[in-house]
Structure formats: C-alpha cells, structure tokens
C-alpha cells in the first residue's frame, strides 16, 4: 500500500537527466517488430532480437520453446536455451545501463525483462530496447503491440530494477559484446559448450582468445571443444596454452591429463593429474580424483608426445 503514493508522485516530479545529453542518439530502426498481446511478449521479444541477429523465426514457432502456460510467461532460462538452439550466443549483460547502451551503439537491440507490477506482486514483461534519445532522456522500445514506445529513462530503470536488471542479446558466434564483459561472455559460451553446441562454442572461444590474450578461459574452452570433436593434439595444445597463462588453472590441468592419457601418454598424464589434485580447491577435488582413477585404469605408458 505504501507504494501507491510514491507511484503517483513519480508521474509528477521530473527526475534528473540520466542519459548524458551531449552524446548522439541511436535507433536501430531495421529491427523487426512482432506485435503481440498474449504470452507477456516473451516469444515476440526473443523473435525480435533473433531476427536482428540474422535468425528468421516467427514468435509462434518460439511459443512451445519459451512459454510455460502454468507460469504465464517466459523464463529467462528458456530464452537462453532457445537462443542456443538457433546457434546464437545468449549473452546476459552486466546489470548496468551503460552495458545496455553500449550494445545499442554496437548495433544490437537488447531484450529486457521488466516488472510492470510491484515487487510483492510482479507483472513480468519482455520488451526490446532498440535505441535511445539522449536529449529527451528517453529509450525507444519494441513493446507489446507498440512498435515504437518512447519511455523516460527513469521510468524504464524503475521497471528494469524490479526485474533484477535482466538483459540479453543474441550474438552471432564470433561477435563479442560491446562492453568489457569477458566473464559474462565466457559464461554464455560455456553454456553452449555444455549444451553440446560445440562448433558455435568454438567460434565464441576463438574470438575471445583473440580479444583477451591474457585470459586463460578461452583456451580452456577451445581445448574442451577440440576434445569433443576428437582433436586430441589440438586439445592438448590449447590446454597447455591456458596453463601457460595461468599455471593454477586446475580444470585445464585436469583436462590436459585426460587428453594426454587418451593419446596414450600415460606417464605424462599421471604427472599432470597428481599436480592438479594437489592444487584442486575442495569443490573441484572430487572431479579431479575421478579423472585420476580413470587415468589409472587406462592402458599405455610413456609416449613420444
């Protein structure tokens, strides 16, 4: 109840300018539009960003993938999974307006989650931010049945805050996020790897390795995707590269040991896995022990590699 007076007031009092007025505006006018009233716009919003990233799909096609009737809405996890299904990288942005604006400047519309209700009685809504007008301090959205909704930045932030500032773009594999968000990006690509989208993940890791040469994660990922494709030599080289950047990366050492053992280099594999076990934090130790047991049971001895 005590929210009501605050809500009424918000309409009357002009807040401070949020977008810095001297910068240029952006409007990604070519972004597709799928007017939709039902389903809280989840499938329509996802079809919009997928369309902008070159995947032609109708919202109706997405309904079974991203709409749980009993929940009356789309869960973010389903959007992420559906995006993977279309070989796009579901990159969830850091929770900042700057990261969102940076994506728009890079030419990518941003799928956002909003809470149009209250924190204690949420009404979820999905829309797509396609631009902003700094002088007017407004964002431009494709939202529901409105093709071009102009929204005060302050009002948008209010709804967005109540939805945990969730925002996502669907990256073409090989494209990188506009903001310096290597962890968020690697997490998105790791999700593709886990879902078995090995080739798409490999392209994502490759791009990340080029952009962040001091980051071991992309090399670990490249090793994993090469291994999944049966390229043992390539996997070994990638894991070694990751360990050269960060010798304490236990997962890379574990995987290097496994790949060496599969190549028949049991002696070298055992040396690596013992070191990995020494260095493993408690949450990784059980997996590393399993690898050690696995290697112990494998045939082979020393090898040329």
């Amino acid at each position, binding site marked *: 109840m005590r929210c009501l007076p605050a809500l009424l007031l918000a309409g009357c009092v002009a807040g401070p300018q949020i977008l810095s007025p001297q910068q240029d505006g952006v409007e990604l006018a070519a972004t597709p539009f799928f007017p939709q009233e039902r389903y809280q716009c989840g499938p329509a919003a996802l079809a919009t960003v997928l369309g902008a990233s070159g995947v032609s799909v109708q919202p109706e096609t997405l309904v079974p993938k991203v709409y749980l009737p009993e929940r009356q809405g789309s*869960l*973010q*996890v*389903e959007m*992420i*999974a559906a995006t993977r299904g279309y070989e796009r990288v579901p990159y969830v942005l850091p929770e900042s307006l700057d990261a969102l604006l940076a994506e728009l400047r890079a030419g990518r519309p941003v799928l956002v989650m909003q809470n149009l209700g209250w*924190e*204690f009685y*949420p009404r979820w809504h999905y829309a797509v931010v396609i631009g902003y007008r700094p002088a007017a301090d407004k964002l431009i959205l494709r939202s529901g049945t409105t093709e071009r909704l102009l929204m005060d930045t302050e009002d948008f932030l209010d709804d967005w805050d*109540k939805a*945990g500032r969730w925002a996502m773009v669907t990256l073409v594999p090989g494209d990188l996020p506009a903001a310096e968000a290597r*962890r968020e990006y*690697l*997490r998105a*690509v*790791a*999700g593709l*790897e*886990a*879902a*078995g989208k090995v080739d798409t993940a490999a392209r994502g*890791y490759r791009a990340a390795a080029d952009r962040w040469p001091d980051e071991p*994660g992309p090399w*670990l*990922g490249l090793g*994993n995707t090469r*291994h*999944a494709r049966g390229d043992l030599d390539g996997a070994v080289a990638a894991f070694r590269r990751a360990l050269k950047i960060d010798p304490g*990366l*236990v*997962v*890379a050492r*574990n*995987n290097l*040991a*496994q790949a060496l*053992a*599969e190549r028949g280099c049991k002696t070298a594999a055992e040396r690596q896995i013992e070191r990995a076990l020494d260095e493993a*934090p*408690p*949450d*990784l130790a059980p*997996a*590393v022990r*399993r*690898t050690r047991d*696995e*290697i112990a049971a494998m045939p082979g001895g020393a090898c040329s590699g």
Partner: protein
Amino acid sequence: MHSDKTSRLRSPLALMAVFAYLFSFMAMPAAQAGMIGTGAALDAEARAERVAEVQRLLSQDRVEAQMVELGVDPAAAKQRVAGLTDAELNTLEQELKNLPAGGDALAVIGVVFLVLLVLEVVGAIDLFNRL
C-alpha cells in the same frame, strides 16, 4: 527497510536461478568422462573470489579482536571459509557486509557470534566448549 525490499525482489528471481541450474543439467549431454567443462572452471573461479572476499571481511581488526575474545584463532577461522557451502558463504558475506560502520561493539559481537556458528557447522571450531 531497504534490505527488506531487496529480499522481496530477489525471491522470484532466486527461484528462476534454481530452475536455470536444474535445466542446465537436463540439457547437458552425457559428460565425457575425465573432462571438466569450462562452466565448472568459471564457477570455481567465481567461488574462489567470494572466498577471498569473505576472508578479507574476516580480517577486519574489530572482527579479529572479537574472535580472539571468544577464544578463536582468526587464522584457523579464515582457513575454514574455503570449506563452506555456497549458502553458508552467502550468509557470512551478508552478515559481514551489514556490520555497522560505527563502533557498535554489541553489533560486532552479534555478527562474529553468528559467523562462528556458521563455521561451527563444519566442525572447525569447538566454540561451545570454550564458552
């Protein structure tokens, strides 16, 4: 009041996160034996950072002083942080971050006591024998 609002906001999102976690396993193909996914490495990295953060929060002078007062070795307490579950780590981080900036000695005692209770759960500190 602020934290009250935050918890109301977080609960549906937390639920979704739980679903995300469960779905991520359902979607996974049979993991190749011996290999650990990149996601697990990122999780481990994030966790290591949180452990370090909690250890840093435990290193505040007044927190350490209070531990000594209760007969607990601060170094031993910090060592135990790495063995906590994620939920326990969460509790410690929240509690330690809510420590009042001023010199409210009673609040510090309360927080440190709770911290030691959480650590007691993993059997590190025989607090009750010392009291």
